[in-house]
């Protein structure tokens, strides 16, 4: 049940990595690219930029797919701007509504999350510097409303004896994401931007001392590390 979205994500990412590897011959020029870059220092006439993008906007297509199978509802948009050479500044904004209903808990959350960070391209396609593999990091912050419809109370021994509830309260949480992904041009100015992100939970503003069990943008079953997937369709503005 819980693994289903992950299986799908892995499948989806694999499909896309296949796509990228199909362009292997162009990507593997990277060693030559480096040589050419060196040359370009000496040869000022030579311009390595044939087709490259600076500003990209995109939406996540993974969450809508996942929402068909789980309680998760929401969407995410991103903007990426090339700041310097291989460095891209990235901002992401999302909304998520989620529900936690396990181990006698019943929690509803909904709210916005923001992610700020960068992507650094490990390898770029010589023909189109927007294609390539990247790594990066994000600082993420979610501010959301949490309603604890039911929480378990253990009075004697190891069984749940009674239940309580808390009214809706505004809480927040923040975490760090390590990003690994790839961007590849599909058609005209549209690019597929796929990344996988180990998320490291940092902290939160708690309701009644309760650790968050579900955070918009972070996920359910909060462990020290979660994974999220961004399956983006991005559009190159310029």
């Amino acid at each position, binding site marked *: 049940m819980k693994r289903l979205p992950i299986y799908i994500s*892995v499948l989806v990412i694999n499909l896309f990595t296949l796509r990228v590897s199909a362009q292997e011959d162009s990507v593997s020029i990277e060693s030559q690219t480096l040589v050419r870059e060196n040359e370009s220092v000496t040869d000022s006439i030579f311009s390595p930029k044939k087709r490259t993008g600076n500003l990209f906007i995109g939406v996540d297509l993974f969450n809508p797919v996942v929402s068909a199978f789980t309680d998760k509802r929401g969407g995410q948009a991103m903007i990426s701007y090339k700041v310097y050479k291989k460095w891209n500044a990235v901002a992401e904004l999302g909304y998520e509504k989620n529900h936690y209903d396990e181990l006698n808990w019943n929690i509803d959350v909904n709210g916005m999350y923001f992610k700020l960070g960068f992507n650094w391209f490990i390898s770029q396609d010589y023909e189109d510097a927007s294609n390539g593999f990247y790594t990066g990091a994000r600082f993420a912050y979610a501010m959301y409303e949490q309603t604890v419809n039911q929480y378990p109370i253990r009075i004697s021994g190891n069984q749940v004896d009674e239940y309580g509830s808390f009214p809706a309260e505004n809480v927040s949480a923040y975490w760090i994401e390590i990003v690994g992904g790839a961007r590849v041009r599909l058609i005209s100015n549209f690019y597929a931007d796929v990344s996988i992100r180990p998320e490291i939970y940092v902290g939160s503003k708690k309701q009644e001392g309760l650790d968050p069990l579900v955070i918009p943008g972070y996920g359910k079953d909060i*462990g020290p590390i979660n994974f999220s997937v961004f399956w983006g369709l991005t559009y190159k503005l310029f």
Partner: protein
Amino acid sequence: MKKRFWVLGLIFCSLWTVSCEEDDVCVGEGTPFLTVVMRNNVGTANLADTLTIEASPTVDFANPDTIYLKVFTDSLKLPLGGLDESQTFFRLRRRSNADRDILTVNYQTKSEYVSKACGFRITYEDLNYSSSFNHIEAIEPAESNVLENETITNLYIRLSN
């Protein structure tokens, strides 16, 4: 080129292993019991005796829970009530005597988060006690009137000779 696939492969593998990790088994501390120690009538030493103890949220003991049934002991662990309760009555019977004592415990409850698997537990504040004095000679509350940890004795009961 090969290296890159190794890295991607590693990421996917770790995705699988991490996704299985769940801590669904409650091993945290639960709601504490009230620890009561029996002493002799001058309060100099603990006094073990055969006790039968019943608990009830109402004074009429309509449907009591038997906590101890003829147990020879000098220290008792008594469960208090749930979140919405503020009073628990205990009926103490010493050996097979016909006259029994009723110990009343008043408290304020508070819920405290333990963990995802355990949920919340209850801690008690403003504990105070009253009792009848058939076989109980006196009740002596300990310094703390807060119950968060059941290893600390909250109440001493002096039994008559």
